[in-house]
């Protein structure tokens, strides 16, 4: 390396002017920090919510004992019994039922929309399905109470307001989630896969289920997991149709109470230990939904990686 004095004089570079000068720079910085703050506020509110729920709920769980909280089957706050086992079971069954109804319907709908319907029709139907997601959940509950519950009572027996009614309503409510994410996943499969399979003499259906569904699998799984998160957390529609009796269900026609319903129903008048118990229920829900969301993200990431 030559020392500076020995090198021939470099032609002076023109001084680069900052276009617009100081005012523009200030505006840029301002915009930058405003957007940063907006972006952070979402993260911060998540953290605050988590902290708040944990602060209220965790001491209770420690006091009662995790086992007695999660696995005792009696819930009677007036005499200090705080077992949420029946509600955990109810939440699981309602969610599972909703998935059994919503996932196959949703995935089939997505296949239909992407493969067997002209694009122009899909452009009309898909936004309509997404509108389903915008219907307030209380209206779903209303339909459940007025139409579904009497139907179940008259045709299958039982009180009508039941686990089955909850599963059906939730199954319909998660359709937009399953369909629209699955449609995106299927549309993201390169068209070349379809052409390649067809050129090898596959029928349309063979190429769909052997190639396209395989390639879109992780996206479809993610849609189902996200829908599960939605079903676990849904409250209003569920409260209206499941009957809310705290007991372990023995059939799909039994009345049940879910974790979310429990919080919403009792928060209005709960005090002291009872109130803490509801927060602890919230902790359980929070953890379940977090796990489901992480699974969904992992599924989607695996797709991006392969």
């Amino acid at each position, binding site marked *: 390396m030559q020392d500076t004095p020995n090198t021939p004089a470099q032609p002076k570079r023109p001084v680069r002017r900052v276009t617009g000068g100081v005012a523009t720079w200030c505006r840029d910085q301002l915009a930058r920090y405003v957007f940063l703050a907006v972006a952070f506020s979402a993260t911060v509110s998540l953290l605050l919510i988590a902290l708040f729920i944990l602060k209220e709920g965790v001491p209770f769980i420690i006091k009662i004992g995790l086992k007695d909280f999660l696995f005792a089957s009696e819930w009677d706050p007036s005499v200090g019994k705080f077992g949420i086992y029946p509600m955990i079971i109810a939440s699981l069954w309602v969610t599972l039922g909703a998935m059994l109804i919503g996932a196959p319907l949703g995935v089939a709908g997505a296949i239909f929309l992407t493969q067997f319907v*002209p694009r122009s029709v899909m452009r009309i139907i898909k936004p309509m399905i997404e509108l389903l997601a915008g219907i307030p959940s209380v209206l779903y509950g209303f339909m459940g109470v007025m139409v579904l519950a009497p139907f179940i009572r008259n045709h299958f027996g039982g009180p009508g307001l039941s686990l089955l009614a909850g599963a059906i309503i939730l199954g319909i409510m998660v359709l937009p989630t399953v369909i629209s994410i699955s449609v995106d996943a299927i549309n993201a499969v*390169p068209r*070349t*896969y*379809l*052409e*390649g*399979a*067809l*050129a*090898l*003499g*596959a*029928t349309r259906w*063979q190429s769909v289920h*052997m*190639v396209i569904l*395989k*390639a879109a699998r992780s996206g479809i799984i993610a849609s189902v997991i996200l829908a599960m998160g939605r079903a676990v957390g849904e409250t209003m529609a569920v409260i209206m149709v499941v009957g809310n009796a705290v007991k372990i269900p023995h059939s799909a026609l039994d009345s049940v109470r879910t974790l979310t319903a429990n919080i919403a129903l009792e928060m209005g008048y709960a005090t002291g230990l009872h109130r803490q118990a509801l927060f602890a229920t919230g902790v359980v829900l929070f953890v379940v939904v977090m796990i489901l969301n992480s699974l969904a993200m992992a599924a989607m990431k695996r797709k991006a990686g*392969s």
Partner: protein
Amino acid sequence: MERKVKISVQNLSVFFGRHQALRGLSLDIAANRILGIIGPASSGKTSFLRALNRMNDLDPESRAEGRVLLDGADIYHPSQSAVQLRKRVGMVFALPMPLPMSIYDNVVYGPRLSGVRDRATLDEIVERTLTSAFLWDEVKDRLNLLALRLSGGQQQRLCLARTLAMDPEVVLLDEPCSGLDPISTARIEDALSVLKARYTIILVTNNTKQASRVADETAFFLMGDLVEMGETSQIFTVPKDQRTSDYVTGRFG
């Protein structure tokens, strides 16, 4: 040698919506020879190729007029199934497009669709077709590797093997070497020269030199018309049409 006609194209026009991609062309394609199709971009080469195995049908806007006779039977006749047709007329695309599965599964995809389940038979098909595509030696120890991990040239040869595995009668190749390096290109060309003993091969290529190297006969397309078709040596040395002459000598296109 007698020139046996495998595919007879009669007054074929292809439309995409209002756009006419092919303008009523007629030609006979000889069995067990390589037909090279050359021409500048948007001259209808690919539309022609995709008309021969009815891949154009995938576009709901497309429409074909005229007749395409494969061994004397019109492939556009309503009683003909496009799925059966594509088993007889295989296709290799411009971009290698292995399916997202292993090398082995890619090759046996076609045979499995036709109901072949016997492992030994499938093994034999895999070895025979990969050998024909000059790929066997490079992948024989890793047949379970995801096909997408192969290099571009290997993927394209895999796609050729996959097409051969269906045991088609006609193999359509749509610019199979457009994205490949010279060595991979040479390998595919070598494979084609051997394969023509068994198959009728139609090769669309943007590379005029490639047509002159491997094609027995060459057709020159321009703007949806067939300008000229003949023995490759004749097309490249004494073309009858001035436009062909200009194109093969590189004066335009």
